[in-house]
């Protein structure tokens, strides 16, 4: 039976958990709190580590649930991830810095994702960024694989329509 170590097997998941928590709470400070709470909670369940099939899925599930709880308490609405960095509305043609323009566009993608319903956001996060299978995602969200697929489909379609459209016609 594999010996699970908190330091070597669970703690290293911290950034993956952070990314999911951030995707849900849209707030870096809250996200870090969620990760800390998650890891402590997982630590408190160490008696059952050996019996858990996928510790990663286990941690992600707890992380997501804690993040959702936090959101309910904070009564969050979808906000821009970084309020202090609003790109100017109409500088696309004038901006000589290619990189700055690209930064803005990537920020735009983030904003679009942030506007999606939480389930779609989380599914997209776990698939497109963490590279998880539909099966794993279904386990973390406690939904069917088919529902995972539907959520991701809708998320991708929305991004496509809004983002590609914005690309073509400008903000």
């Amino acid at each position, binding site marked *: 039976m594999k010996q699970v170590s908190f330091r070597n097997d669970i703690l290293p998941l911290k950034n993956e958990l952070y990314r999911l928590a951030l995707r849900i709470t849209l707030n870096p400070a809250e996200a870090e709190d969620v990760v800390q709470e998650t890891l402590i909670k997982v630590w408190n369940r160490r008696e059952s580590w050996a019996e858990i099939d996928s510790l990663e899925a286990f941690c992600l599930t707890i992380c997501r649930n804690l993040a959702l709880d936090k959101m309910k308490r904070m009564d969050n609405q979808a906000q821009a991830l970084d309020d202090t960095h609003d790109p100017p509305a109409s500088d696309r043609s004038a901006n000589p810095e290619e990189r700055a323009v690209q930064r803005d566009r990537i920020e735009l993608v983030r904003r679009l994702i942030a506007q999606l319903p939480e389930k779609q956001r989380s599914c997209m996060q776990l698939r497109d960024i963490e*590279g998880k299978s539909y099966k794993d995602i279904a386990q973390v969200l406690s939904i069917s694989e088919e529902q995972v*697929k539907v959520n991701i489909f809708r998320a991708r379609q929305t991004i496509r329509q809004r983002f590609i459209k914005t690309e073509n016609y400008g903000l």
Partner: protein
Amino acid sequence: MDYKYIEQLLERYFQCETTLQEEAILRAFFQQEDVPESLMPYRDLFVCQQQEALTAPLGDDFDERLLAIVGEKPQQEKARVVKLGSRLMPLFRAAAIVAIVLTIGNAAQFSLSPRNQNDDINYSEYTDTYDDPTVAYDQVEGALQLMSEGLIQSQRADTLSAGMRNNTDSLVRN
């Protein structure tokens, strides 16, 4: 250069029909410098995904705090490098396959000489060595696997020495 394969992958991506590996191929494809005009609108979406995957803001101090809370003493540990067998591998494979596709697709054209005008192979001369499809299949499978290995080996040598070093560094875990 014909980007039909990438365009097909894109369509399937938005229809939610792609595998994880195909999605990795798309991300790797859009990382490169020369994305054709027609595909540019999609680039930022995939670049964003790639960037997000590499954000790792929680560092050593977070570890120390957590370990203190759960009562484990923080040790002097060497920086942990992500083993190639984990998440990095699909990315590596995708980058390599993009390189293969672009390389062989862009191979220099040889000049036409009159001798080459009838270049079509005369297949009527082909006599099967094996009449049994099962045996033939085994041979074909083995040969294709060898070819597959060869492609990967040759790309690995190139890729490892070049861009991949950047990615490995940024994924060093503390």
